């Protein structure tokens, strides 16, 4: 089932949760809604589900206007952040719930319900837990039960609200891969809300980045990572260095600086850690930045260098291959020279200041 969200507005008192947001999701797609808390992503998901009504705008499911349909009528499966399992029911009865409350004429027979529940418990690998209560299961197991319960009614859309955020890192990664496999098997249109950029980029077909109630960027994980549209997206995806200053010379080899930037008083430049060229001597003829090595992390395939700019003590992260690291033979305290190989420039609008200084990311 396809989902179209058209010009949705939602206010809570003076707070604008969603501001004229439109989004289109194709049948069978897995889309992640990514954004910081307060960006409106959960509100959007709940509006798609029918658990929340928009102030204005429309939700179309398979082309049909469903804005005024109740959650029960929409044929959706919803997975909550804190599982929301029925604590007084066994795992079996939890999964069977949606089947048991169906209208009498649509309802399956007892035997069919049992078969369907057993099939789903097998899918989520909890066959032997059928008689237990939610309290007896671990967080990861509970979320699998919640997923089985949502899938029991054969929903045409599966909506997941930060489903893995309450779990520890290892379980989270496992469940993420597992969700992707289930999606590939069932081909059910899926919308996943998350604030974890790694999760969104890894699991989704397309990622929608939300900021302050608006859609900031929509695209495949690779296009979003390679071509962030705005400073906010750059900053939110993280793993990026930020340089700000007056644009005097063409610093980078393939800078996209345009006339607007030249006219602007100040600019922000984003450079990914692997896009910084490091040398022990200042490169001749080319401008460069002097930086001091603070710490060296050499525990991965790449060596990560924590640096501090000599001119203003701003922190900078650089990544070099192990081979290059051995050639450079760096040690903490050493002075090196940086030359960005690629840089994306934005005009430095005053309003973005607070946004960019909130410390996340870099």
């Amino acid at each position, binding site marked *: 089932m396809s989902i179209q969200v058209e010009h949705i507005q939602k206010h809570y008192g003076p707070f604008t949760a969603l501001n004229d947001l439109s989004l289109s999701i194709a049948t069978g797609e897995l889309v992640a809604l990514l954004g910081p808390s307060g960006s409106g992503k959960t509100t959007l998901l709940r509006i798609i*589900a029918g*658990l929340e009504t928009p102030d204005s705008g429309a939700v179309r499911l398979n082309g049909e206007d469903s804005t005024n349909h*109740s*959650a*029960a009528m929409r044929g*959706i*499966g*919803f997975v*909550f952040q*804190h599982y*929301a*399992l*029925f*604590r*007084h029911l066994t795992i079996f009865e939890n999964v069977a*719930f*949606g089947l048991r*409350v*169906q209208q009498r004429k649509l309802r399956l027979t007892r035997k069919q319900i049992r078969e369907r529940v057993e099939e789903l418990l097998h899918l989520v690998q909890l066959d032997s837990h059928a008689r237990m*209560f*939610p*309290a*007896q299961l*671990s*967080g990861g197991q*509970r979320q699998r039960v*919640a997923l089985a*319960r*949502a899938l*029991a*009614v054969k929903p045409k859309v599966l909506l997941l609200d930060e489903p893995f955020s*309450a*779990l520890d890192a290892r379980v989270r990664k496992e469940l993420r891969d597992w969700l992707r496999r289930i999606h590939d098997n069932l081909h059910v249109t899926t919308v996943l809300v998350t604030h974890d950029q790694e999760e969104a980029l890894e699991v989704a077909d397309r990622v929608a980045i939300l900021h302050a109630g608006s859609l900031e960027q929509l695209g495949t994980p690779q296009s979003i990572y390679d071509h962030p549209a705005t400073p906010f997206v750059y900053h939110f995806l993280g793993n990026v260095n930020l340089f700000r200053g007056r644009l005097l010379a063409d610093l980078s080899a393939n800078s996209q600086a345009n006339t607007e930037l030249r006219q602007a008083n100040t600019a922000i430049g984003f450079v990914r850690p692997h896009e910084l060229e490091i040398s022990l001597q200042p490169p001749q003829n080319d401008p460069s930045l002097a930086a001091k090595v603070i710490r060296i992390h050499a525990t991965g395939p790449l060596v990560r260098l924590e640096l501090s700019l000599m001119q203003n003590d701003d922190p900078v992260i650089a990544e070099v291959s192990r081979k290059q690291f051995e050639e450079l033979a760096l040690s903490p305290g050493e002075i090196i020279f940086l030359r960005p190989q690629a840089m994306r420039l934005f005009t430095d609008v005053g309003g973005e200041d607070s946004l960019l200084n909130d410390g996340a990311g870099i």
Partner: protein
Amino acid sequence: MSVGHNLPTPSILRPSAKQKVGRGVLIVLALLFLAIFLVLPLVTVFVEAFSEGWKIYRNSIQQADVLFALRLTCLVTGIAVPLNVIFGIAASWAITRFDFHGKTLLITLIDIPLAVSPVVAGMMYVEVFGLHGWLGPWMLAHNLHVIFAIPGIVLATVFVTFPFVARELIPFMQAQGSDEEEAATALGANGWSIFWRVTLPNIKWALLYGIILTAARAIGEFGAVSVVSGHIRGQTTTLPLQVEIFYNEYNFTAAFAAASLLTLAALLTLVIKKVIEWSSVIHYRIEAEIIEP
């Protein structure tokens, strides 16, 4: 010898002789207070009731008036409790699950019977339904009797027991949140099946507790009922009123015999309350594990 013998114990765990004396004095004081003000009067009720022997006691409580009062008390409690259960669930549901104008006002209104003296409550009903009250002449014309009749007693009892179920449920439902109900909605359940299959099973312990408190209050209510009943023997006397009637007639044995029935009812509700608390503690312990994965 324990392993940790050489480790100094914090002073709070190893009281000095002086602290021991202080603690002992406090415990004795508390027990003495309880004995004089609670246990002694309670024992007196039964001692007085049986002072002239088992046979007299049995005759006292088998008098027509006492049996009638007992039946009326049961009837009034039997009406007041279900009404308050319905109201309590509806009010708590509205308050904890929806946002609407006047919500704070509703919460405040629920508390009024706790703040108002029961005698005043009784007088309010007399003022409204009494012969010279606002609705009195109209009701007389239609042959409806509220004041000095059983409907008035029921109304007064409902009034004073109004807050108990709602007061129990509101904080409980607030803490529980509406996650499970939303999950049920998303799974296609209608309002009725959400209530029976999800809400009610989750609130049952708090609800039972509220019912026990309501019943205890309904059985024992004196002030409000006294004003509206008119004390007509065999017609509008509940058990507490019957006790007063006997007492005013210097029929102490009968008064204490009737009082002993009320005391037994109170003790019984205390036991049920304790059992419920005990079962729900076990229940909550399981729930606590849900939060700690």
